[in-house]
Each structure stands twice: as structure tokens, then as C-alpha cells.
């Protein structure tokens, strides 16, 4: 039997969380780009036990024709969880939740893309969740942003995303599956990053789910923004390492 919500010990005597992290520490994250050969751009991001592969095709011909826009490209965003990504089998195919996440992820990425450059074209972005342990939408957005850059689609900056949440009335960064499900609240945040940190204050995704006070909301957002910045540094490093290797020694 699982313990009831009140019985869970969210912090040990040293103040560490259920998986041994500090309150403002995010899970170990690894990123890789160019994981798929056929796609124009692709990336895989692992954040703890959450693992997402994102792919980008395009700009390309868009069908059906009535979806085309005469002055800009149209993004088709797909969020999909593999049947084996959660403990119970996930029923395959789109559902209400997947459609909503696809839509918010699209809106999180759209502001950085120079879509007017490709009138009438379409860009297909897909986020496949291979393993889920909380924070799939934010990990998906981070991966999709890398894949878009890898596809050579012009963008103003890199988008990175991370969630913060509240467990036991304490704000924590990057909630995992258990904290997400049984904690008080979680707030996913996506930020547009530029090289200069001062300028990087545009938030393109902010959702909230749960019970929390105004101070906790503020704390969560600043925690998540901090995390997004660190993720951006990792994204940048991944790109540079990968492309310097392609460039070879000079």
C-alpha cells in the first residue's frame, strides 16, 4: 500500500529530497544532437529518468493546402508518449492531454522562430517521450529547441524549459514524477535565452497546477528561471561540442 499524502517524508534530516537532491538542484541532464539520420534536425535530452527524442523536418511542403499561410511557415507540433514510458501501459495515440501539451509547446517555441522567412511552408516538430518521470513537457521543449537549431532554422535565441514545484510547502526545482504527482503544485516555465543573461527574461511558457501561495509562485518562477539558464549553458555546450567535432581540427 502506498502511504497517504501526509505520511510521505519529503525531506530527510539533512534537508535532502526524496531522490537525494538539494531543493534548488535539478536532475542530472545529458543532451545529444543529431541522433536521427533522416530528420533535418534532432536531439535527445535525458533529465534524470525522463528521456525525450525531438525531431524536426522542414521547412517543407505543407499539406493539406488549406493549412498553408501565405506569409509565414506553419508549425505542426506533436507530443507523444510511448506506450512503455510509464509504469502502466500508456494507451497509444493522441489524447486530450497530448494535444494540449503539443499546443503549449508550439507556443513556447514559436516566438523565437523566423517563420516569415518561409511563406507557405510547414515545419514538423515531434517530441517522443521514451521514458517519463515528471517534467516531460519541459524536457521536450528543451530538446525541440536543440533540434530546431540543428535543423538550421533561423531563430532569435535558444529556448530552454524547466519546472519548479511545491512539496511540503517548500518550493523545489525540477520536480520528479513522485513530487509532481503527490506534491502540492508544479509550474513549468520556458525562457528565451540570449548570450547576455540580463536580456533573457522573456517567458514563453508558464502553467500552474496545484495549490500554492503567491510567494511560492514567485519563488518557483525564479527557481525555474535559474534552472533554465543552467540548461541553456548545457544546450550551448552540446551544440559547440557536436559541431566542433564535425568541423574537425583546424
Amino acid at each position, binding site marked *: 500500500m502506498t502511504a497517504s499524502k501526509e505520511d510521505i517524508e519529503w525531506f530527510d534530516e539533512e534537508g535532502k529530497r526524496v531522490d537525494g537532491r538539494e531543493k534548488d538542484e535539478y536532475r542530472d541532464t545529458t543532451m545529444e544532437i543529431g541522433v536521427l539520420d533522416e530528420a533535418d534536425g534532432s536531439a535527445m535530452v535525458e533529465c534524470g529518468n525522463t528521456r525525450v527524442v525531438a525531431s524536426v523536418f*522542414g521547412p517543407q*511542403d505543407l499539406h493539406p493546402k488549406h493549412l498553408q499561410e501565405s506569409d509565414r511557415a506553419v508549425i505542426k507540433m506533436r507530443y507523444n508518449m510511448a506506450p512503455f514510458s510509464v509504469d502502466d501501459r500508456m494507451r497509444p495515440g493522441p489524447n486530450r492531454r497530448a494535444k494540449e501539451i503539443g499546443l503549449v509547446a508550439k507556443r513556447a517555441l514559436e516566438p523565437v522562430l523566423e517563420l516569415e522567412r518561409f511563406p*507557405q*511552408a510547414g515545419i514538423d516538430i515531434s517530441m517522443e517521450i521514451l521514458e517519463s518521470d515528471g517534467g516531460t513537457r519541459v524536457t521536450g521543449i528543451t530538446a525541440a529547441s536543440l533540434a530546431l537549431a*540543428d535543423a538550421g532554422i533561423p531563430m532569435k*535565441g535558444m529556448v530552454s524549459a524547466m519546472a519548479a514545484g511545491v512539496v511540503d510547502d517548500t518550493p523545489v526545482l525540477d520536480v520528479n514524477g513522485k513530487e509532481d504527482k503527490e506534491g502540492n503544485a508544479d509550474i513549468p516555465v520556458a525562457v528565451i535565452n540570449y*548570450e547576455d543573461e540580463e*536580456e533573457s527574461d522573456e517567458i514563453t511558457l508558464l502553467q500552474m497546477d496545484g495549490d500554492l501561495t503567491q510567494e511560492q509562485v514567485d519563488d518557483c518562477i525564479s527557481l525555474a528561471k535559474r534552472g533554465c539558464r543552467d540548461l541553456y549553458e548545457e544546450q550551448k555546450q552540446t551544440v559547440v561540442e557536436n559541431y566542433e567535432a*564535425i*568541423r574537425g581540427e583546424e
Partner: protein
Amino acid sequence: MSRVKEDNDLVVPGDVLFNGSNLYANQGTYEANDKIYSESIGVVRYSGQGVEVVPMSGRYIPEEGDVVIGEVSRVSYSRWTIDLNSPYDGTLGISDATEEYVDLDEDDLTDFYDVGDTVVVKIDSVSESMDVDLSMKDRRCKKLSGGRVIEIAPAKVPRVIGKGGTMVQQVNDRTDCNIIVGQNGQVWIKGDHANLAVRAIKKIEREAHTQGLTDRMAEWLDDQLEKEGDR
């Protein structure tokens, strides 16, 4: 008012390239709040008046004046539609295709170019809404028969051609092949050592960003030819 990066640095979208606005923001860059930023993954190039980022990936987007290799995908009443391996198809009108008089009701357009034919065409104009007009009125333009077409990344095309065409000329000479490189990343190869030429082009694409590649390729080609001779 200063350069922030070094020439040849690798940058990612959002990186600052220049403080101030007295420099032109060329390809791969954009201007905002008195600064110039990069908008793609690529290599920085500063010049006297401008700064650009040469992208390391991306699909081919048609540009006026480019000579490209395409495949005829549709024949209509008075024009051909040509697939350019790009998000946008090209249109070749009858008057841009031939000097001959063509009676549209009597003559068959497929006598000139039929669906599936590979052609070298020049991009005459590209409209705001990305309607691409093609023309055959250039001495490089023709229908290609035989041979094969391979694909390389459009970003690597300048390297495969080389300075003043030296790189492709070298592969040409040593393998006795006819090679035509389209700006859209389509490469047509025909000749005795076509397999070797394909491998050579692929090798150049892979090592596009290394120094002294032309000389190294010369050695590599001689080496490979010798091996083939032994067999």
C-alpha cells in the same frame, strides 16, 4: 562598437556578434537593441562593412542566380514544374526553356523535358511569396542523361566546389568523370570511376571544414586510383 567574437568562431542562436549598429547584419544574423546577434549555428565571418554567420546546416532555399539540379515533377500545358530539393518547387515556362517556336496545341512538351528528367536550371527570380521562376538561358543549363545524382548538405556546397572550382575540377580530372554541383546540394556524376567520385564527394562533404583539404584530396584520390589499378 566592437567585435565580440573572433573570425571563424562557432556560434549558436542568440550569441552577440557585435556591439553597436554601424555594421551590416548580413546572412545568418539579426539586429536588435543596438547589437547584432547570430540566428543560427554557424561560423562567424567579419568583413569591412558587415558580419555574417555561415550556417552549418539547413535546407536549400532558392536564390536568384543560383544554378541548381532538379527533377521534372510535372508537365503542364505551357510549363514544367521542377523539384529543387527545397521547400519550394520551381516553374519553367516555355519561353524560358527554348528559343524554338512551340505550338502549344500541336507540339508535345514532353519532347523537351519529361517527368523524371534531371535538368540543370538557373533560378531567374524568386518572388516575395517564394514563387520560383526558372530559366534554361545559361550555357551551363541542359538536360542530363545517364549518370547519377547524389545529395550533399547545401551548406557544404561551396567547399565541394572549392575556390574557383578547383576542388571539383580535381575530382573531375582524376576520376575521368563529369561532375556538376548544383547550389541546392544535388551533385550529378557520370563517368568510368563514378563510384570513386561519389566517395570523394562524400569525403569532401564530411571534412568540409578542415584546412588543406584540396591537397589532401589529391593524395587520397591518387592513392585510391592506384589501389583500383592493382585489382
